[in-house]
Structure formats: C-alpha cells, structure tokens
C-alpha cells in the first residue's frame, strides 16, 4: 500500500499528529483529553507512518525500540507518585503543585508528570504490540 499520496501525506501527518497528541495530553486536566488518549493518538501517528513507508523506515525514524518507552513511562509515573514522600513527607500519590500559574499548561503539578508517564507507557505498549505482531507475520 505504498502509494505516493499516502506516503507524502503521512510524512506531514506524523509531526502534526504528534503535536496534537501532546496538546491532548496537556489539556487533559481541564478539558477532554489526557495521557491515555494522547498516547493512543501518538501511536496512531507512528502506525500510520509505518503503514505508508514500511516498518523499517519508522524504526529508523524512532532510533530506539518503542519498548523502552514502557519502563521510562512507568518510572516517571512512579517517581511522580513517590515525590510527595520525598519532598513533603505526605503519603504516596498526594498531588504536589507549583504555586504559580503557567501559560498553556495551567497549574504545574505532579499529576502532570504522572500523566506524561501514562502517555509514554501507552505509546510503548501499543507500538511494541503492533510492531511485534506485524513483524512476526
């Protein structure tokens, strides 16, 4: 299915979709969105790219195995969970918040890092499964 139209389109779609996925991730705390959907959209972006250009190209583009996103995301989510234990002595998963209001992101807090962790794990899981399955067939 390597038609010139879809290949050209996917090259422009990839960065657009990725930016969109980050947008969805960041707005999650106030408006519909969040790490889970964001991660799925980002995976769609890569899968679409693989669909048009072949898996090898996407792998080259990624530079690393998507599986590494899983431990990275898990670690990030876990660290954001234990950060209150370390910094303020409050229980696991208590939200920590930066007092100032930031543009775009809104309030910066440990929950955002947790969500980024979810975002990475979802991407890692989806891409690992899809890449492995399409390689093995």
């Amino acid at each position, binding site marked *: 299915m390597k038609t010139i139209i879809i290949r050209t389109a996917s090259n422009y779609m990839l960065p657009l979709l990725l930016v969109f996925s980050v947008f969805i991730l960041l707005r999650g*705390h106030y408006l519909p969105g969040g790490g889970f959907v964001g991660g799925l959209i980002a995976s769609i972006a890569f*899968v679409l790219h693989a669909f048009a250009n072949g898996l090898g190209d996407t792998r080259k583009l990624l530079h690393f195995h998507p599986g590494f996103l899983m431990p990275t995301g898990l670690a990030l989510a876990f660290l954001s969970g234990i950060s209150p234990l370390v910094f303020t002595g409050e229980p696991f998963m208590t939200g920590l918040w930066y007092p100032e209001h930031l543009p775009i992101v809104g309030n910066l807090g440990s929950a955002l890092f947790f969500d980024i962790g979810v975002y990475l794990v979802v991407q890692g899981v989806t891409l*690992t499964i899809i890449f492995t399955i399409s390689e093995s067939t």
Partner: protein
Amino acid sequence: MLTAILSGFIFSVFLVFAGKFLKGKLAVLSALVPLALFVYFLSFLPQVAGGEVIRQEISWVPTLGLDLNFALDGLSLLFSLLITGIGFLVFAYTAEYLKEHDYLDRFYGYLGMFMGAMLGLVLSDNLLSMFIFWELTSISSFFLIGFNNTSEASRKSAVLALAITGSGGFLLLAGALLLGNVAGTFNISEMLALSPEIISSEYYIWIVILLFGAAFTKSAQFPFHFWLPGAMKAPTPVSTYLHSATMVKAGIYLLLRFTPVLGGEDIWNTTLISVGGITMFYAAVHTLFRTDLKGVLAYSTISVLGLLVFLIGLGTQYALTAAAVYIVVHALYKATLFLITGIIDHETGTRDVTRLSGLRKVMMPVAVAGFLAALSSAGMPPFVGFIGKDLVYESTLHMGSWSIFLTVLAIATNILVLYAGFVAGIKPFTGKLPNEHKKVHLPGMLMWLPPVILALLGIIIGIFPEIINDSIIAPVVNSVGLEGNEVHLKLWHGFNLVLGLSAITLAVGILLYVIFKPSAKKERGIARLDFIAPLTLITNFGHGFKVFSNWWTRIFQNGFLRNYVSTIILFLVVLVGYSLFSDQNEIPIDLSSFSRMTYYEMIIMGIMFLAILFVVGARSRLTAVVAMGVVGYAICLMFVIYSAPDLAMTQFSIDTLTVILFVLVLSSLPKYLSISDYRMKVVDGVLSISFGILITLISLEVLGEPVNKEISNFYADNAYVLAKGKNVVNVILVDFRGVDTLMEISVLTIAALGVFSLLKLRLRRDDRELKD
C-alpha cells in the same frame, strides 16, 4: 538466634560468589560454620537445663500474626544440637567424600540452606514461620536428592519426595491456619495455655488430621513412607544428614511439640499408636529383603521413625522419655552406619551386601565404628541403645490391657532392627576378604573419623547416661509437658522382666542374623508384591491424574480463539442470567422516565445495525474488519451525544488502531475460510443474541434502581478543590484513583512484554529450524 538461623542461608549465598575457592583443599573449612553453631547452642545447655526458655521476638508482618518468634527450650535444643553436631561431622565428611567434585560448592550451598531451614523449623515459636522453614527443608531436600542431576532415577526420586513432603507442607499450612484461628494466636507458647479450649473446639479433629498428615508425610510413615528409600539416591552425606538424622524427624518434632497442646485425646493416641505400629513393623520386615546397604538402612530408619510415632502415641512419661532417648540413640548409630556405608561405597564401588565381606582387614577403624554402631542398634549393654530399648519395653508393658500385644510388636520390630544394624555394620567387615576388594584401602581421616566419633559417643553415653540425663533428656520431657525431674536414665535396672525381654530380643535377633542371609533372590521375591505397594498405587494415581489433566486441558485450551470466546460468553450468560432471574420474579424496568428517541440516534442505530449485518455476512476478512470498525465509530458517536467526550476519544483511537493493525497483518493471515456450518451459525447466533438481551436487561435494571450519587458528587465537587483539575475523568485517573492507573499501566506493560516475548521466541525457533 536469628543470626544462628540466618548463618546457614548467608553461608549458601556466600558460596554463590566464593564457591570456586571452596572447591579445593579449603572445602573442609566450611565445617566451621556448623561447628561454631554447635558450640553456640551448647553454651545454652546450662540455662535450658535450669528450666529456662530463651526467647527472641522480632515483629515481621504483625497484621498477619506472622512474627519471627524464636524459643529455645529442651526439645528445640536437642534438635539444634543434632542438626549442628551431625551437621559438623557431615560437612567435614563431605569435603573428602565429594573431593574434586565439580559442584561441591553447590552441594555445600544446599546443605547450608537446609541447616538454616531446619534450625528455623525447630526454633520457631510462631506456627506460620515454622511452616515457611518446613517448606524450605522440603525444597533443599529436593535439590539434594536430585544432586546427581544427570541420572533420571535421581531426578524422579527428588520429584517424588518433593511431591509427598510438599503436599504434607500444604496440610501443615491448612492445619496451622485452622489452629491459629481457633486459638486466636499463632504463637505455640501461647497455645499451651489454651489447650482445653482447642481440644473442645469443633475443629479439633480437623486440626489433628491435618497436622498428622504433615507429620506422617515428612517422617515417612506408612503409607507415605516410600519416598524415603527413593531419597537414598542422594549422595550418602545427604542420606545421613537429612534422611536419617534430622529432616525426617521434623514430623516427630511437630508431634512432640504439639503433644502438650493437642495430645491426651483418644484420637491422638490411637491414631499414632496404630500408624506408628504398622510403620515400624512393616518397614522392619522390609529390611529382610534388601541387598542394597542403603536400602536396608532406609527401611530401618522408617522403622525407627514408626517406633517414635508409636511412643508419642503411647504418651506416658516412660514413652516420651523413651522417645527422647531414642532420638539421640538413633541419630548416633544410624548416622554412623550411613557414614560407613558411604565409605564402603566410595572405596569398593558397591553397596551390594552380598558382595561385601572381610573389609576389616583393609579398613580397621571403619570396622570398629560399624561394630559399635551395630551393637548399639541391637540394644546390647552397655550401649546407649540398650537404655533406649529398655525404656521402650518399660512403656509398652505399662499400657494395661493392650500391653502384651504392644510389647510383642515392639520386640519383633527390635529384632528386625537389630538384624538390619548387623547387616549394615557387621556383615561387610566379617568373613573372608574377596579378591576384588584386596586393593581397597582406608579413606582419608576426614571420612573415617566422623563415624568413629559418633560410635564412641554411643558407648560413652551408654556407660555414663548422666551426661544427657539432666542436661538434655529431662528438659525435653519438661517441654512436652511432663515431669522432667522424674527422669533417671540407668544402664542397670537389676534382674527384671524388661531385662528378660532384652535378652530374648538379642538372642532371637542374632540367631536371625546367623540363619537368614540377604540375597538377590529374596529381593526379587518381594518385588512380586510391588503391584499393591503404596509406591505403585500412588505413582499410578499420579499418572492417572496427569492423563486426566491433559484431557481436561485439551478440552478447554484447544487453541481456537473462537471457542474460548464462546465458552466465556456461555458461562457469563448462564451464571449472570441465573443470578439475575433466581432471586426475583420480574425485573423492575421503568420505561416511563425514558426520553423519546431522537432521529439522529435512530440514524446511528440504523448504521450500527447495517454494519453488524455486514460483519455476519462478510465474505472477506477486510469487509468484516471495516464493518466492525463502523460499529465502533457508531458507539463513539453515541458517547458524544451523551456527553462523554473522553470516552468517545479513547474509543475512537482504539478502533482506529485495531483496524490499522488488522490491515497491517491482513496479507499474512491465512485465507478467510467459512469455518462454521449452518448449525454452528445458529448456535453462535443464539448465544450472541441471548448475551445481548442479558446485557440490555441488566442495564435497564440498573437504571431502575435508586442510584447512590455520593461518590460521583464527591469527585465532581472536589476535582478542582483538591486536585486543581476541571476534567473530572482525568482527575480521577491521575489523582483520586492514581494508584489504580499505576497498576493498570503496569499490567499493560506486562501484556506487551508477554506479546513481545511469545512472538519473538517463536521467531527464533523458526530461525533455528531454518538453519537446520
């Protein structure tokens, strides 16, 4: 005390790193560990003899009642000394026995682990931690029996032993939980005071049955005895240490430990007397038909274990004193016999008793040890075995109406045990030295000294029983709840009935040894009865169970996804449907509050319906997949209409991904076949429709019930206040129920790793096949 227990484990972990250095000449240094522990426990002797119980309490998992409580009383001390003392000799012996062996470090590692576990078992005052150590001894025994892992027989015996002792451990856990619940505590010392309550409880009988199951499997009682002869496949130091002196006595320890808590009832005494009686006689008869030295010793060990259970069953002051003495007696002479068997095997290369004779000419010290041990096992004065046997007869004679039967049984057993001891300890050394063994020589001192030490201890303690009277035996009797200060061990009791019985035992036993010669023919003769032996029956049962589970697995795990899905749905429909309809006659459905269907909802429904028809009738896989995607998108639209944008977005992405994934792999899937015939389609259709109806009914019923909005209101009210977020769904995901999300992403990761490793493994195998 914790350090003492842990030192065994630390020693084995240490060997993982430093094992290489211990394989050569330094191997003997490892014996320092048990020696140090032996001295450490010896230092408690005066305190314990004074009636003190030394305790150490460490809180581990207090919410489960699981604490590391250790208590050192007379009974624990006796076992600790056996474990470390014989352990020391066995460690030293092994250095020579397995000299230059490739896996000597591994062997020491298992031995160290076993020693730690066994010490933990006898020192634990908490029933749960005792169970953990109990299991650890079974596991280390498994590794040690299977040490020669290139031999199939050895691996088989290891698995068999683990299966039997492991299921016993399971019973122990069940019994421990039941006992802990009845008593309200898992601490054994606290249970002592609660004995009347426990005995009168309705669960008493179950507790006793479960604990008996554990003790009988571990201590090789009939009909679970057969794993022990199999365990003789292990190197001789293991047989000496685990399968004669210590581990197999764990069941005896358990029974003694719980005698003051659970004992004294009819069921306790009668069961123990009968099981112990049958075991001791049955196993003793078996020794007549063995030609393998270790086989003879294995059966005579089982016989003595039976005798111990029997004595605990009698439960009198005499009987329990006899049991305590017999533990010492047996440890001393049986360990000696095992060790010399190991020497004979090591030097001559055979354990066949019919081919061994006259070895005294080439290994005199070993022959002396063998003679002394055989005489002690025979109960000849002035050996400690004589004191033990006397006490046994003394206790059977005091059993009222049954005394004659029990005494005859004990005498018969003792005669046969004497025979076994003579076969193992005297037969190989007397007579003419055959030519094939002319060149045999004495092994290194590390090997022959341990049995000599043990054999000499047997005669020293026999002549001066005061050595162990107040220091060991009396505290043991105290800790099983009887009067320890009434214990007076004596070699000479004057001319009385017991002495007469002893004389009869000796005379008949020696006569039997002279007349009855072990031979391969007799061994084959008894082998004809194997078809009704417990070993065969249980092996067949195990085999049958395997066949059955294979059959069962093949039915349910048949490899067809469609069958899995329909099985799951069928069970869901039946179970949920049953619980939905069983407790009410009609389902409360209130349609009046529903709003009218709008036209766009109808359009979406129509699209969905059409798409489903497409799926069912599809003739190519692509059509089916795309049509399924349409169904998914239609559901997303519904979510949008009912203002659940988060759900809609997620569902939309998932559906897109699924379709893309399918298209990616489509070309490599097998041809789309019409696998279901007409009948199959009808069955599937009925199943799907009933599932749909069920879900609809449940949804409608849920709507009819009064809804508790407390939780959703809490989330809605506090999302911004507590978590500074306006999107309640996301706030729940990352904050209120963040731990759930953390678990979920972990599960996702595990699933992805599973897919990855399964498929990659298959790929590699394909690669390998290609190369071949």
